[in-house]
Structure formats: C-alpha cells, structure tokens
C-alpha cells in the first residue's frame, strides 16, 4: 500500500493536470466559448503550478529506486523533470498566443477560439508527461497516443480553413502510420526480450542481437523518428506546420518535439542502451540527413512557417548528433540544446504572431517581411536575434547549444560526424541570413502595418529574446549543472 501511495505521490503533476483538464471540460460545457479566456488562464496557472512541482525533483537530482512508480512503468527522475518544465513552458506560451490569433477568424458570428482548446492542450501535456516519464513500452505508447490524438484535433482546429483541415488530416493519417510502425517494433521487441519494461529489455537485448530483435529496434526508432520529424520521416512537417493555426504550430515546434526527443533518448540509451552498436549508425545517418535536407529544403521556401518547419528538421539533426555520441555528456548537451531551441522557436513564432498585414491578416509570406526594420524595428531586431541564433552565430546563445553538442561528439571520437555537421550548418546559415537581409535591406513591401501586438505577446517575446541573447550565457553554468544531473539520472540502471 505504501508502494501505491508513493507511486501516486510521484505522478502528482499528471493527476493535477488531468483533474484540472476534466474540471475545465465541465466548465467549457456549461459556460460555453465566451469563458475560453478564463479557462485559458486557469490552464496556464495549472501548468505553472506543475512546473513548480517538477522543480525540486530537477534541482535535487532525484535518483535511486524512489524515482520509479507503478513497478517501473513510470520514471519520475530529474531527466523527466527537465523535459517536463520545457513542455509546461511551451504549452503555457501556446495558450497565451492562442486566443488572440484564433479570435481573428470568425466562424458563425463568433471567434474561432473555443473553450475546448486549453483542455486539449492540457491533455496533450499529460500525454507528453507520460512520454518523457515512460519506463515501459506500454507507457510510451499510451503517452504518445494521448499526445498525438490531442495534436491532430489542435492542427485541424480552424475547421473552416481548408489548410488547417488538410494539416489535421495529413497529421492524423501519417501519425497513425507511425504509431503502427512503433507498435510493430514494440511487439517484435517484446517477443525477443520477453518483457515491455525498459530495464528488462536492456538486460535481454545486450551483445549479439537476433535479426528479429534488430527489426524491432529499427521499427521503434523509425516510428520515433517520425514523431520528431527526422529525415527520412519528415515529409509531413512542412505541410502540417504551414496549415495548422500559428499558435498550434508554435506548440508543435516546441512541446511535442521535446517530449518525443526525450522519449527517443530514453528508448535508445535506456531500453536499447545495451545495443548501442546496433542503433548508432542509424542515428548518425538520420542526424546528418536531417541537417542536410533541413538546410537545403529551407532555401526554396517562400512561407515563413514552412521555413521554420525545415529549420526544426535541421535542428533535430544537430540534436541527434548528441544522441549518436551515446554518452552522458552527449545527453546533457542535447538537453542544453533543447532548452535553447525551445526559446528560439518561441521567439520566432512570437514575432510572426505579432505581425499583421494591411488587411489585418497574419503575415506568412517571407516576401512581405521586406523592409521590416523601417516599419517595426523592434520586431526586425528580434527576428535577427532568432535567425542568427538558429544559425548558431557566436554572440548569440544558439551557438552555445551547437557548441556543446559538437564537443560531445568530438569527445566521443566522432570527429568526422562533428566536421560534417559543422560544414552543413554553414548551408543552413544561408537561408537564415537571407531572411535577415530581406527584413533589413530590401525595399519595404508596404504590406506590414505598424500595429503593435498585445502586451502578453511582448512579454513572452522579450523573455525569449533575453534568453537567446548573449545574456543567455549567464545561464550557462546553471543550465550545465541541471542538465548534468538530468543526464546522470537517465543513465542510471535499476
């Protein structure tokens, strides 16, 4: 019984989020869509509260058998706490962005913001929490499905908009395919390992693997690569990012990426941690392919959301270099990169959300950004910070993320991998700098009006820009300490 109450105490964040989600669902049923703003505020408060619940676990670097709940199905360690805090921040930012954007679309005489939006985001967060805390293949799958089902609905949320409906449908069909691939891999792994528990799988899948077990491993990794949109499973990303409402795209670019990547780390380094040789070359290929395809694909894009989609593919490649190292240092470097990447994405999408064209519509075409610096200089400078940071140009914090990842690869004797990655990041720099050139040096397009966004957007943008600015280096030692603790807990066996 004490074991059960200990388990319930460990999953307190999930309990809080689920209960708040259910209560808000009832509130949305009775109060209707006019209460959506209040419901969003309560949901953000719940997310902030959960972030404070996760903070002691992270700061204390929770280790040992105390971190396991329900016989190892759920792991509430420092690693999951780090990922969860990033997820809470991303979800809260999405909820701050959403009402303003969605209410510009009028459906049947009322704004498109519905009271169910925050509820779906909360349930998606519960699913992502299960993903990052998974200690068992079944927890992995249930968390993944909970997150994905909410995400499909969020992508199609502007149901009267053709592109949004298309994004939802595409995401759903391809996501279901990926789930099927993961399930197939899981069943093969279970067949060969005799258990779905990560630690039991680790024990069973060490040394020389049977062909079937390798098939299982490859299918699981392929399905996960789909969820993190790594090449060659990236095709859905640009369409979904372009079609989904921009706040939802912000969400997709941040929270599910963090969750799926943390899950990939747990599976690769935990469950398949004894079979590094079997997956290392797959991860190296996927990392390099993502970097190169992400960089080359972005060059021809004319829509800023599509450009950021390719940029996310590109960044996933750099993150996977840390995974390919398969060391504790590599895992810590990935967490540092993830932290910076989340704030770069939030800042980038905040800029897009705050721009309006002369018709009052959201600005999406890159050509419309021409001469942004003369119309809205603050936005232009923020965009510059985001683009230079994404490109990894030194004074900005984005450079630090790339630096630690490459250092981890070099320390793991993967100098060739690091060298190719650095060379490919130069290709990426081309299109980032092109956006800056259009915003600063081209003739003003006259499409953008000097209308400022709401104060909540400004605060989010300011905080995100401060973190990615050179001031972010002040966070470096603190971030390094936390990520080291988190990575150490990930490598804990038993």
């Amino acid at each position: 019984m004490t074991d059960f109450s200990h388990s319930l105490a460990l999953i307190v964040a999930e309990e809080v989020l689920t209960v708040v989600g259910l209560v808000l669902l009832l509130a949305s049923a009775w109060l209707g869509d006019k209460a959506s703003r209040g419901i969003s505020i309560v949901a953000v408060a719940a997310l902030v509260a959960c972030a404070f619940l996760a903070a002691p676990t992270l700061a204390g670097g929770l280790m040992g058998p105390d971190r396991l709940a329900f016989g190892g199905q759920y792991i509430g360690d420092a690693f999951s706490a780090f990922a969860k805090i990033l997820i809470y921040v991303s979800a809260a930012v999405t909820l701050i962005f959403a009402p303003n954007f969605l209410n510009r679309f009028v459906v049947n005489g009322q704004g498109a913001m519905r009271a169910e939006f925050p509820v779906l985001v909360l349930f998606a967060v519960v699913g992502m929490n299960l993903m990052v805390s998974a200690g068992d293949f079944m927890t992995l799958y249930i968390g993944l499905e909970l997150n994905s089902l909410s995400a499909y609905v969020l992508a199609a949320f502007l149901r009267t908009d053709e592109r949004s409906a298309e994004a939802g449908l595409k995401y759903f069909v391809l996501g279901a395919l990926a789930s099927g691939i993961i399930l197939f891999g899981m069943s093969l792994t279970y067949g060969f390992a005799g258990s779905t528990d990560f630690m039991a799988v680790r024990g069973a899948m060490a040394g020389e693997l049977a062909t079937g077990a390798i098939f299982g491993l490859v299918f699981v990794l392929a399905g996960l690569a789909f969820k993190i949109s790594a090449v060659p499973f990236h095709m859905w990303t640009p369409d979904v990012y372009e079609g989904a409402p921009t706040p939802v795209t912000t969400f997709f670019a941040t929270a599910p990426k963090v969750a799926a990547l943390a899950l990939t780390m747990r599976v690769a380094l935990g469950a398949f941690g004894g079979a590094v040789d079997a997956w290392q070359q797959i991860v190296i290929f996927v990392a390099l392919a993502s970097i190169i395809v992400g960089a080359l694909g972005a060059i021809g894009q004319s829509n800023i959301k599509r450009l950021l989609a390719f940029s996310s593919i590109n960044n996933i490649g750099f993150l996977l270099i840390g995974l390919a190292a398969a060391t504790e240092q590599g895992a810590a470097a990935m967490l540092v990169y993830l932290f910076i990447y989340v704030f770069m994405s939030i800042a980038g999408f905040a800029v897009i959300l705050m721009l309006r064209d002369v018709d009052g519509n959201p600005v999406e075409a890159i050509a419309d950004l021409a001469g942004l610096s003369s119309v809205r200089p603050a936005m232009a400078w923020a965009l510059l910070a985001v683009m230079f940071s994404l490109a990894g140009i030194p004074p900005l914090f984005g450079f630090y993320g790339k630096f630690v990842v490459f250092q981890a690869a070099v320390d793991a004797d993967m100098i060739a991998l690091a060298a190719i990655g650095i060379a490919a990041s130069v290709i990426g720099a081309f299109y980032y700098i092109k956006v800056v050139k259009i915003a600063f040096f081209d003739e003003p397009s006259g499409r953008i009006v000097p209308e400022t966004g709401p104060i909540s957007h400004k605060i989010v943008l300011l905080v995100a820009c401060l973190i990615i600015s050179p001031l972010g280096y002040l966070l470096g030692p603190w971030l390094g300490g936390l990520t080291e603790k988190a990575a150490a807990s990930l490598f804990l066996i038993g």
Partner: protein
Amino acid sequence: MIQTITFYLFSALVIASACFVIMARNPVHSVLWLILAFFNAAALMVLVGAEFIAMLLVIVYVGAVAVLFLFVVMMLDIDFSELRAGFIKNAPLGALIALVLFVELFVGLVAWNAGGVTLGTPDGTSAAVEGASNIQSIGALLYGKYLFLFEAAGVILLVAMVGAIVLTLRHRPNPRSQNIAKQVSRRPEDATINTRPEVGAGVKL
C-alpha cells in the same frame, strides 16, 4: 481422444466456413458463414483453455462486428424481393447453421470439462496462475499492476470523444428542434380557419 476429435472438428469447420464466406453468392450468407467461423474459432480457444479470448470473440466479433457487417451488407444494393422469395429455400440453411452451433455448444462443453489441449512445451514464463481463471488473472493485471496505464487509456478515449465533438459540432442559428411549450400553447383558433367558399372557387389560404 475427445479433445483431438473436437479440435479437428472445429478446425475443419473454421476452414470450411471461411471458404464459404468467400464463395457464397449472397453477401448476407457470407456474413452468416463468417459468424459460424467466429464461433468455431472461439471453440478452438476454449479448447486451449483461453476461455476469456473465446468470450471476447463471441461478444466482440459475433455480437458487434458481424452484426455491423450485416447492417452494411443490408445497405448494399441487393434485390430484397429476390431474397424474400428465397426465404423458404434458405430456411433450411439457416436452420442447419443454428443446429451446428447448438451441437458445438455441447461438444465444446464436454471437451472443456475433459481438460485443455497442451500446445508445444511451455517454458513457464506465460504459465497460467494456479487456481485462477483467465478472467481473474486479466482482471488482477488490468486493475492492479497496470491500473495506471488503464486509467491513462481512459483519458485517451475521452480526448478522442472531445476531439470528434470539437471538430464536428455546429451550432446552427435556427435549429429545427421541437418546442413543446410553443406547441402546447397553440390554440385551435390559431391553427384552423372556417370558410364557406363558393362552389368551384377554391380556397384562398
């Protein structure tokens, strides 16, 4: 001995009814053959001692899926007058399938009482719990060890439901729903008029 006989009986019937599913001209007959195949598969499950799966097969596949198939088949463009005309002709077939199911029920019960068929050599990892039925074992796992995942799966179903409603529910400005108060408060003189029209002139409303 009896197990072997019943095993071959049920297996042969599964294969035979599966063949009839694809060979029957009439789609309704195909579905009936499919139901027979499901029943025989369930009987095979009973033989190996997996009575829970047998029940699932009957309840889920026969009870829900096959009936759904039957509905879909009935929506197809089938000449129903032709089907009805053949009722007397088909009645013996229906009665025959019913009889076979009935006999199987008895044979299955007798075989089950005689003990399960041993499949391969068990290595002990998936051995049945002593003194507990399948349903008890599954229940103990589902509501004990995997309670957390079971509850989380419930949340997934809730999200699916909420999502379906969010994406499809439309509040129409003038729904044509019944307004009982309005109907009850309507008086006869509002609804009827008495006129005395000229012969051949018709009524103007």
